[in-house]
């Protein structure tokens, strides 16, 4: 049975897109058919991680929301771009990176129901095992819809007071929307911290399972979104924690 997984954070810059791309790749490496949809219409970016440039973006989520194409026509098979031994398949549904198209969707809006239909049609038409939703930070209509329809939700936070407060709000909202499975991911943790202590403190604060604690990584920073981390550093601690997260979300 197929599954919808949302990756969210209350604040920006927490590593949502990176986490989404890495978890998707790990799942595809296990032979699953994975869809990745960029619902961050205002500030899209995950296409960079999958090596999809503007010239090869035939259709985007924006085109579907304006009724210019069917949702499956927006799906780009990016598996080969990863240049790795991947048994499954990764389809990316990017949001447009053209300034005018971003402006238009903000200006004219779109049919939220169509977005919901699109999520479900992708599962069916691409025969996906998993649909991963990369969300816009904070709480807006797309985010709430993504959370509401998700079978599993990962909320990312950094060990930062502002993140702690905002995450509390998001956890509360997700509980109100009765998401069946919710986990937390603590990202960019300074290596001087005691990770077990961080995990215990966060779990106690939110009464929610921490699926993974990722250390701050110079290698991740140096990669600078030029690829998918788990493929470049398969034996890194970040990769093993991301594996734990993927397993937790699929449990």
């Amino acid at each position: 049975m197929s599954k919808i997984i949302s990756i969210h954070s209350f604040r920006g810059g927490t590593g949502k897109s990176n986490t989404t791309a890495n978890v998707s790749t790990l799942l595809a490496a296990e032979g699953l058919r994975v869809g990745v949809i960029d619902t961050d219409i205002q500030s899209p970016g995950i296409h960079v991680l999958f090596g999809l440039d503007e010239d090869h973006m035939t259709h985007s989520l924006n085109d579907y929301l304006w009724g210019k194409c069917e949702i499956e026509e927006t799906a780009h098979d990016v598996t080969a771009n990863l240049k790795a031994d991947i048994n499954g398949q990764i389809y990316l549904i990017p949001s447009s990176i053209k300034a005018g198209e971003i402006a238009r969707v903000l200006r004219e809006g779109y049919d939220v129901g169509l977005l919901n239909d699109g999520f479900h049609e992708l599962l069916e038409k691409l025969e996906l095992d998993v649909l991963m939703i990369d969300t816009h930070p904070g709480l807006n209509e797309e985010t709430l819809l993504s959370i509401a329809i998700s079978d599993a939700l990962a909320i990312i936070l950094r060990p930062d007071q502002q993140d702690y407060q905002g995450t509390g709000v998001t956890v509360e909202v997700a509980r109100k929307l009765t998401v069946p499975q919710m986990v937390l991911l603590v990202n960019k943790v300074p290596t001087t911290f005691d990770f077990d202590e961080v995990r215990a403190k966060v779990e106690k604060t939110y009464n929610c399972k921490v699926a993974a604690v990722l250390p701050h990584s110079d290698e991740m920073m140096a990669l600078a979104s030029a690829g998918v981390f788990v493929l470049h550093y398969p034996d890194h601690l970040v990769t093993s924690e991301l594996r734990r997260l993927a397993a937790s979300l699929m449990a």
Partner: protein
Amino acid sequence: MAGLFDRLQDEIDSREKPGGLSPIDLLDLPPNLASVIQKIIRKNGMKLEEIATALDQSLEETQKALDELVNQGYVRRVEVKQELWYKARFGRKADKTLHQSVWSALDGLIEDED
């Protein structure tokens, strides 16, 4: 289950009844209505019996909640292969909260790319 007919029906519905459900409304609905509509959204459409079973409640109780959601314009009835389905009726989202001067600049961008 969404097809061309569904989308046309959505368009007709939205013209006839402005408003519709915003995902934000999900946070404000009373628990008995929220639980029903959350199920419907997650499956993108369900039948009465399925909803009642999923929520472990009676058909009467479920029907009452559905009728209320239909009256509020948050849910619509759809006939699929002679069976009655219930589907969320979302409104249209447009963020027009930016200052007019910002929109003027953005309109320029839209025209440039046309």
